[in-house]
């Protein structure tokens, strides 16, 4: 057994030396593979208004350049997106500043408290101030997740969500509030009253006449929302108010 020890040590040393020399060789001495630089001529002799040029040829890159994206952008943001009549998707990020703020306010145990998404149904609500939702549901989520799929369950509902945590005394603390999103319709409209328009908007002014209150009008009112992390997402698209 004792005679084996120098043999084993010797073999290990030899292997290590071989590996080091291979590593050095492969990194420093191996000739780099290079694609040939051949200018390619435009062989077409048809008439062209432009672009009769010789193309510079870039070397074929050995591998795609490393382009990992940042994990975080250090912003406070909670974005809600409707996926289909029954589901929505939310993603978020809490900035370091905000995180510190909360920790100093609620103590270092803050990070241990249960994360919750509070899902407000605000269908038909004119101005959502955090208290006047039709109803809300709490969804318990993992503390370290950064996105979540939310089951809404029915079409044509307008939703707003809060990301927050529940304190030991049961109090819910809002960290971020989302934009509003509406699940798409999934059936024939039950509104039969008709409105007709001539091409190129002779009835342009009709846009200002309101027929009953539908969810869409919440947006048309151009409501400004306070205390919202991403207010720009609440802006209706192309609204002409």
């Amino acid at each position, binding site marked *: 057994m004792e005679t084996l020890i120098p043999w084993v040590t010797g073999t290990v040393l030899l292997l290590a030396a071989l590996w080091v020399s291979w590593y050095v060789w492969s990194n420093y001495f191996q000739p780099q593979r290079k694609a040939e630089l051949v200018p390619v001529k435009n062989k077409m002799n048809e008439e062209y208004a432009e672009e009769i040029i010789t193309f510079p040829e870039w070397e074929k890159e050995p591998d795609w350049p490393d382009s990992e*994206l940042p994990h975080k952008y250090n912003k406070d943001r909670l974005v809600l*997106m409707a996926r289909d009549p029954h589901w929505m998707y939310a993603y978020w990020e809490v900035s370091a500043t905000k995180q510190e703020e909360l920790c100093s306010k609620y103590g270092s145990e803050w990070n241990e408290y249960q994360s919750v998404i509070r899902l407000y149904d605000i269908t038909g609500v004119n101005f959502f101030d955090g208290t006047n939702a039709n109803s809300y549901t709490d969804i318990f989520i993992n503390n370290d997740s950064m996105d979540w799929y939310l089951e809404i369950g029915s079409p044509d509902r307008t939703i707003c969500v809060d990301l927050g945590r529940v304190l030991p005394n049961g109090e819910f603390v809002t960290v971020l509030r989302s934009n509003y999103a509406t699940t798409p319709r999934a059936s024939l409209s039950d509104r039969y009253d008709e*409105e007709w328009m001539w091409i190129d908007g002779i009835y342009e002014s009709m846009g200002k006449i309101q027929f009953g209150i539908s969810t869409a009008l919440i947006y048309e009112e151009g409501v400004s929302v306070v205390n919202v992390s991403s207010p720009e997402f609440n802006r209706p698209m192309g609204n002409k108010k």
Partner: protein
Amino acid sequence: MAKGYLAFVLHAHLPYIRHPEDEFFMEERWLYEAITETYIPLIQGFDRLIAENIPFKLTLSVSPPLVCMLNDSLLQQRYVNHLKRMLELAEKEIHRTKDTEYHDTAKMYRQRLQESYDIFCHRYNCNLNHAFKKFQDMGRVELITCGGTHGYMPFMQKEESIYAQVENAVNNHRRTFGKNPNGIWIPECAYKEGVDRVLKELGIKFFFTDTHGVLYADRRPRYGIYAPIFCRSGVAAFARDIESSKQVWSANEGYPGDVDYREYYRDIGFDTDEEYIWEYIHPDGIRQNTGFKYHRITGDVDLSEKAPYVPEWAEQKVQQHTGNFIFNREKQIEHLSSLMDRKPIIVAPYDAELFGHWWYEGPRFLEVLFKKINDNPNKIVELITPMDYLNEYPCNQVATPCESSWGNNGYHYVWLCKENDWIYRHIHEATERMVELANNYPHTYGVQSRALNQAGRELMLAQASDWAFIMYTGTTVEYAVRRTKTHLHNFLRLYDMIRENRIDEGWLSNLEYKNNIFPEMDYRSFRSRETAQNAAV
């Protein structure tokens, strides 16, 4: 006098794939295959119809990425090289298949490739946009545009993105085809309330939705999907007809699945020995489609048991299926016109690449169909474009289309699922930064202006719905992920350079050369518009 109208709409689109650094880039081949199998056969068919003086009408959306690729001289040159290689292979195939039942098919391929070469190089100067423009100027084809890079509009949280997508598309369209487009194919038919207002601002008069986009509109449309509705903005929405789509789209009931049509999945790129085919597949030895396919669908049998393709049988089926298609449309229109106080319009939209690439006989089907509609003594069905229909019926019902897409399940699932949801965090952040740049740098020149334009290009390329779609489908995912990351990464780097005023001009030039979509790009298309600013008050 026709009792109703049929509007055929083809949506031609491929993602912007151009890799100057690699002569044999795998995914670049998608374009070459589509040119040989779809665009040229369609153009050939239209040219024959024109020669025979048959007044057909068709709406064709040519997406801006495709327009730019067809305009690109590097890709044109590479296509010609590709075509030459395929012609060489065709000659070899003639010898290889001698005295076999595949010989006639081999001869057919050789002839078609020779014709393709002639059409591409000699008739249209290596630029197929010339062909599309010609058909437009002759009043046969209504050319419409699409989202700038086929971006998925419902997920563009900032309307500035939708403006940029549509404005660059319209500018690109005008530059190539000489006039503003009347209509647009909104990418993936994905509509969300508000998109139409942007379209209106940029002079677009109509767009398309899937069936339920109009059927579930609020208020309920009187004519269902057989007449357009006006969005409140005054832009018209036309909906896809279910019946006619099923006949062509459906894998089981549809025409393309007929036993005598050509089988897509048997290709000599995969079937022959490597030493025979190696020059015509990827130089790294990766097997690829060559377009030489010798079998017919045969029936529900294993791929290895497919029977030989017989061109004459396929042609007979084309005759039969066109007849059937017209018969069904006539029945449909007779029924509808008995219920409606105006002529119904049946909108039949398809991916152009379905015709020819997947359904080999598709272009021939269209040609025969248009001819038969013209020759038909009944004249119950007439071909029309949406714009002509709007001119005939300028008064339409006002309703808000239902948020929808033509993807699986009809909403946004395909573009927002576990496989691709991670992209939106980054795209939204980049969009915010781009809008910030466009607003903060209204007047620039020189290298700064170039960097801003390139930032716009990189962002728009990242927004393309194709990447999310590929991630969803699960094939060539790696490429789609890389493209998304690379463009966003380029964008973020450009953003920092612009903000810190230290632009690496060499790197910028390289990017401009590589990702050269939209030569006429103006980053200011990302600025916040008056209307948006007012709305925020």
